[in-house]
């Protein structure tokens, strides 16, 4: 027995807490190995990245990042040596490989597309989802259960099943390969998730708050804005993260429906492989940067995310 004088039935013992903590840390480390590998590969030189056995200790270089953001062309040694002093670190690294930078790569525009489309669709899905969920939660909607099931059922089909009709539809409407088209598509997919998640959260907010506000002289919309929304922030944050993760990572629709102007980062990153041989450091660098926004967003909202995941398991 530990030193606790009061024996508790529900409080775990120190030993079991230690064991549990150790297991959690171990699991966290194991799951983070791929992430760790991607981050270090981004700083390897191409030969180091494909060496066997894999190198954990290596000389770090920014070559992967330079290759990610630039396009280069191979030149003769004489040409490269005849050039003036290198401008910046990337220029220097590139010249060592007997190449010169001829322009920017498409990574940054693709990354911007990802930001616009993912955040745009998230905002739209959460906005529509909140209003819809509130409506279903508070009003007598005819056939509410059937409608909710119908909304959910849009989520049941794999993207590939609807890809062809959407492709044809988008071509007719002029939406294919546009940011607007992708925002609408991701919103359509996410809104079902948003409605279901948010309905649960809004159901938990007692009606009395709005009723009190309405009696206090506010209209329903004002009560919604001033009383319901502030209390639904946790749910909205959790929903936003789930929507953002989906839209950010989405690959199947993006690869089918975008090719140029509206292409997002996920379908772009694999194309790096084909450009100048197997340039794994550049791929890893692209992936690392791609992970950052979602990582920051998730860390900022981790408390809400946790509540969103365990939602319904524990009543407040």
């Amino acid at each position: 027995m530990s030193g606790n004088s009061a024996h508790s039935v529900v409080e775990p013992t120190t030993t079991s807490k230690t064991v549990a903590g150790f297991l959690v840390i171990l699991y966290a480390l194991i799951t983070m190995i791929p992430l760790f590998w991607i981050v270090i590969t981004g700083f390897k030189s191409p030969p180091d990245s494909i060496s066997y056995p894999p190198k954990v200790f290596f000389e770090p270089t920014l070559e992967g990042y330079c290759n990610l953001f630039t396009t280069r062309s191979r030149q003769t040694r004489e040409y490269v040596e005849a050039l003036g002093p290198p401008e910046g670190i990337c220029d220097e690294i590139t010249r060592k490989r007997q190449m010169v930078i001829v322009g920017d790569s498409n990574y940054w525009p693709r990354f911007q597309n990802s930001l616009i489309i993912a955040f745009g669709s998230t905002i739209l899905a959460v906005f529509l989802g909140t209003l819809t969920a509130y409506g279903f939660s508070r009003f007598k909607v005819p056939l509410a259960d059937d409608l909710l099931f119908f909304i959910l059922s849009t989520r049941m089909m794999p993207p590939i099943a609807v890809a062809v009709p959407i492709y044809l539809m988008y071509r007719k409407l002029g939406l294919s390969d546009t940011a607007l088209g992708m925002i609408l598509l991701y919103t359509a997919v996410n809104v079902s998730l948003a409605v279901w998640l948010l309905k649960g959260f809004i159901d938990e907010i007692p009606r009395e708050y709005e009723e009190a506000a309405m009696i206090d002289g506010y209209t329903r919309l004002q009560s919604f804005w001033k009383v319901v929304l502030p209390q639904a922030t946790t749910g909205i944050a959790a929903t936003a993260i789930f929507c953002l993760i989906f839209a950010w990572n989405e690959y199947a629709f993006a690869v089918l429906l975008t090719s140029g102007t509206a292409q997002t980062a996920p379908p772009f990153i694999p194309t790096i492989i084909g450009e100048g041989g197997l340039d794994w450091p550049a791929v890893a660098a692209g992936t690392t940067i791609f992970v950052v926004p979602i990582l920051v967003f998730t860390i900022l909202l981790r408390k809400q995310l946790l509540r969103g995941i365990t939602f319904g398991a524990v009543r407040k």
Partner: protein
Amino acid sequence: MANVTLRGVSKRFKNLVAVDDVSIDIADGEFVVLLGPTGAGKTTTLRLVAGLEKPEAGSVLIDGKDVTGFAPSQRDVSFVFQQYSLYPHLSVRDNLAFPLKSPAHSLNASQIKARVEHVAELVQIAHKLDNRSTALSGGEMQRVAIGRALVRDPAVFLMDEPLSSLDAKLRGDLRVELKRIQKELGATLLYVTHDQIEAMTMADRIGILDEGRLVQLGTPREIYEDPVNVHVAARLGQPAINLLPVSVMGGVSAPQSASTMGIRTEHLDVIGQGTRASDNDDAAMKVAATLERVEFLGDQNRLHLRMGDHRIVTLGDGDIEYRIQPGSEMTLRARNALYFDQNGERVRG
């Protein structure tokens, strides 16, 4: 302040008739308590006045104006909910200021501040104004909830069991306070409770609701002394009225149709055993009973008696337990009996 009138108001939820043809006239400045068991339609009646429910039939008038089709915000009422319903994301101050900041009011910041602080004094919460509303005790939350209703100057106050979730001591204190505030403001107040003491002590008039119907409306004394049926008679009085078949009592001059008689505990005097001077002038309304047990309450004793197959309760002096032992026989005499027919309706002799 204003008067409130309900005219034949009915409300049903699917198959359940929650409020059934209720008509009440509440005068300006009157304190009316709706009393009844759970599911009697008390809260629904209140919500109908507030506009949170729409009646199927009948109309609601506030200050003589038909407001049946009005939204809650247009009715100029304030409501205290049973579960406080303080806005959890706001401080106490902001909770109190919330009604004043509504579009219905055009007050500037200093006016709002003054009103909030005045009300905070009134409900004795001034020292907690900057607390989060979730960081209060139950009694404090309730005071804030009442304060939020008082901060405006509405046509009518509606309160739904505002004291029910408090402990007995606090409930007693707030009861007195609330009545004082209501008198001071001359407020029209419609109050829902299932606590008869709250009803008796605060109400100008009590309305007894049962299964959605307004069974009786009158002053606490009228309701207590002159109930219209068994249900009302049993609702008020602690301990509850003794209900006995008419035939049990000897020498009763009951009305023809009466089948049940009700005798309040304080109208059942112990005349045997010498607890009271026995006046043997008439033999009517006397009965013999066996004492089963005595409940000591300090200032008085409750005597639980057996009379044939029936159990009855009466009151005795604070020291009666020293003089009578359980099992002893005693003679009782009933006064002021109330008679009811087979359906429980009052029969007046």
